[in-house]
């Protein structure tokens, strides 16, 4: 099972790196933010797999929960900033 989980972690790293194209060459700023949010959400599951591999699942589950909440708060804050800016510009 350990080899299977290691393979799953490697595949997950490759899957996380795919949206990095949108972070670097995304046409608008929203595309970059969306890709960063998707990468952060997938990192939660990568952290859970690492917890299994290191045999310290309790600690890594706490880290994963904290990372999920932090990702959510970052997304909400950036969205609020952009919507306020749009209203001020009158669009």
């Amino acid at each position: 099972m350990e080899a299977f989980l290691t393979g799953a972690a490697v595949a997950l790293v490759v899957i996380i790196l795919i949206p990095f194209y949108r972070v670097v060459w995304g046409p608008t700023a929203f595309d970059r933010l969306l890709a960063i949010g998707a990468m952060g959400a997938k990192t939660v599951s990568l952290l859970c797999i690492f917890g299994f591999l290191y045999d310290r699942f309790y600690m890594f589950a706490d880290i994963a929960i904290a990372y999920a909440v932090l990702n959510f708060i970052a997304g909400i804050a950036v969205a609020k900033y952009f919507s306020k800016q749009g209203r001020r510009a009158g669009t």
Partner: protein
Amino acid sequence: MSVLQNGVAGVLIVLGLIIMLVGSIGILRLPDFYTRSHAASKVDTTGIIFLLLGLAVLQGWNLAMVKLMIAVAIIMLANPVAIHALSRAAWMHGERPWMRKKEGED
């Protein structure tokens, strides 16, 4: 660990990885911000839920499984809400959705 537990967990983890791969390719390939947000919110959330459920089956009944379920609940609530707020901000900022061109236009 029984064989059944390993088998169910493996199937769930592989299913989650396939769904997340589809979501990543959607973020890479779709033509517009709104269609990309569609791929990022729904497909990715489903993939993460499947993978974490697979890990919970592998873990068995203990406190770590409860923590995994809390993580699943937070992801289920937070990820679509954050992307919805982002696409609402994009709409107010002036992004317009992609349309297929009409036949006479080109």
